[in-house]
């Protein structure tokens, strides 16, 4: 029987064919560390390093430092990168960004390779045909020191995209549709492909790959196509071999997604598994804060959508709209495109690149009883601050429209004139 993409990548990295149920012990091509690794509560002093060329360090969760403990972590990271001669270091400053976003911006995640990072949203690297996976703090130190890691090989669900999204509908809605109708994918891999893939921008694929983490899937990997390969080659000169599924690849199930049938959706507070409703079901719910950002929705496409909705309009009185780019590179692109000026004029607070409000760390923490609508990665109870806050998850368009209304609102009117 043939193999799907995850099985082929893991087999190559393990040096032996693997099948569902196996434990694949693999060579890791890239290991990313973040500021979370270097916190005093978690850091363990590394004595050996397999290969500094395979290591990326990105300070992202708490940047610039929000308290002395994170400042200590950043200092430790600086010392570490210098000691081991790690060149790909994304410190606070020009190259700053959320680890998954700098990995995407610079195509560190190469097609057909294996990448690990402590952070759960590492699945995001799958948009570049990379077997990328969050593995936690101890495992990344193991990978840095030995160059190896292991994976349980799961069965695979293949999503076949067909058609094209309607105006005002985004990859976030595709995710909310999958999570809302298919539930969790524990111990399973997810593969994305099909003729409709060509109609999803690379930024849309980033969003979907990152959000696949929330399906509890192991890997979420996109089939390569020409735009993906061009994107990688324009950013990373290293050789790579893209991996396609075999014609007779084995899947637990193939599911068809007709993109043109997807509607804007919202996940109700506390979970995104089997928890999506149409925007209409919650329209009118009063909000205190709106957030667009994170590794899922801090792309230039997300800025463009927010600017389109907010141009010439104002954020409702009493509502905070916080917009956080995924990287400083995206911030500069959004500046050049005029989006930052539009958003700022509308009353949004545009922050530096960081995980920030998404992880409830700083720059937009919620208070007791507050209601937030967010285009980020998670709406868990207490995620963005006080446990008594309520967090609705939606697309950047829906969040921007809600910020103007001061209540959860449909963005449909802002896209009514657009061609499908």
């Amino acid at each position: 029987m043939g193999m799907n993409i995850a099985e082929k990548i893991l087999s190559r990295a393990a040096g032996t064919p693997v099948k569902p149920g196996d434990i694949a012990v693999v060579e890791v091509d890239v290991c990313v560390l973040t500021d979370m690794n270097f916190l005093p509560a978690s850091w363990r002093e590394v004595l050996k390093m397999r290969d500094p060329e395979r290591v990326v360090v990105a300070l992202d969760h708490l940047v610039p430092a929000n308290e002395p403990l994170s400042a200590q972590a950043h200092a430790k990271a600086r010392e570490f990168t210098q000691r081991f001669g790690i060149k790909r270091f994304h410190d606070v400053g020009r190259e700053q960004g959320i680890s998954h976003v700098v990995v995407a911006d610079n195509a560190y995640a190469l097609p057909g390779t294996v990448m690990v990072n402590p952070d759960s949203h590492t699945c995001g690297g799958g948009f570049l045909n990379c077997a990328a996976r969050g593995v936690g703090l101890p495992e990344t130190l193991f990978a840095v020191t030995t160059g190896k890691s292991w994976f349980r090989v799961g069965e695979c669900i293949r999503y076949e995209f067909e058609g094209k999204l309607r105006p005002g509908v985004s990859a976030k809605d595709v995710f909310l549709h999958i999570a809302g109708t298919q539930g969790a994918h524990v111990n399973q891999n997810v593969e994305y492909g099909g003729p409709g893939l060509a109609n999803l921008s690379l930024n849309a694929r980033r969003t979907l790959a990152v959000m696949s983490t929330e399906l509890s899937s192991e890997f979420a990997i996109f089939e390569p196509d020409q735009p993906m390969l061009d994107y990688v080659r324009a950013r990373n000169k290293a050789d790579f071999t893209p991996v396609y599924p075999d014609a007779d690849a084995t899947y637990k199930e193939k599911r068809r997604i007709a993109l043109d049938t997807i509607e804007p959706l919202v996940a109700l507070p506390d979970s995104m598994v089997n928890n999506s409703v149409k925007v209409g079901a919650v329209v009118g719910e009063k909000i205190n804060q709106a957030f667009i950002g994170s590794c899922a929705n801090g792309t230039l496409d997300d800025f463009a959508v927010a600017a389109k909705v907010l141009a010439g309009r104002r954020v409702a009185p009493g509502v905070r709209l916080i917009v956080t780019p995924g990287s400083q590179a995206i911030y500069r692109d959004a500046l050049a495109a005029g989006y930052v000026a539009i958003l700022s004029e509308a009353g949004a607070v545009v922050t530096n690149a960081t995980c920030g409000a998404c992880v409830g760390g700083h720059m937009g923490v919620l208070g007791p009883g507050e209601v937030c609508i967010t285009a980020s990665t998670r709406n868990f109870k207490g995620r963005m601050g006080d446990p008594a806050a309520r967090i609705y998850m939606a697309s950047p368009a829906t969040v921007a429209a809600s910020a103007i209304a001061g209540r959860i609102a449909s963005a449909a009117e802002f896209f009514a004139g657009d061609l499908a």
Partner: protein
Amino acid sequence: MSVIAGKVWKFGDDINTDLMLPGAVMAKPEAEQMRAVFAANRPGWVDEMKKGDVIIGGRNYGMGSNRPASRSLRNIGIGFLLAESINGLFFRNSVNFGFLALECPGCARAFEEGDVAELDLGAWTARNQRSGTVLKPLPVPERLMTLMTGGGIYPAMEREGLIAPRAPRSDAITKIRTGALSRSAITKT
């Protein structure tokens, strides 16, 4: 030695990492993180539970983040965790932090809160002492079990000279884990 038993606390489906380790204490010392376990969904639980107690979860246990939630459950003294299914990243962290967490289909129905769950690692069975129901956890490769029951990956990495040993800890966590200090004492510190 291979049979462990503890009083059952039940949690439902899709229990996420943020409930076990809230973002507000993510950068804080371990002792502070321990105090925050399930603070949002079950306030006061860390004071009610006792060392050696057991968690029975539903499907998709530990969904979410890589934050070391397994370490917090280990630190507060949970003897083991059984769930219908476990998020892969939470499972890996459980292996690496030396916290015994096994997938055990049927466990959510087989146990009520307050039951005593008995895990026999030799026979590879989970038993409800009250009802006598016996379940089979899903298999875990031996080398992962060795890490999970042997203190996790850091001691192994120290032995191999990959990371530096930490100075022996005289802090509150070590005292709690060795029984020299009760958990409630932490409240006052």
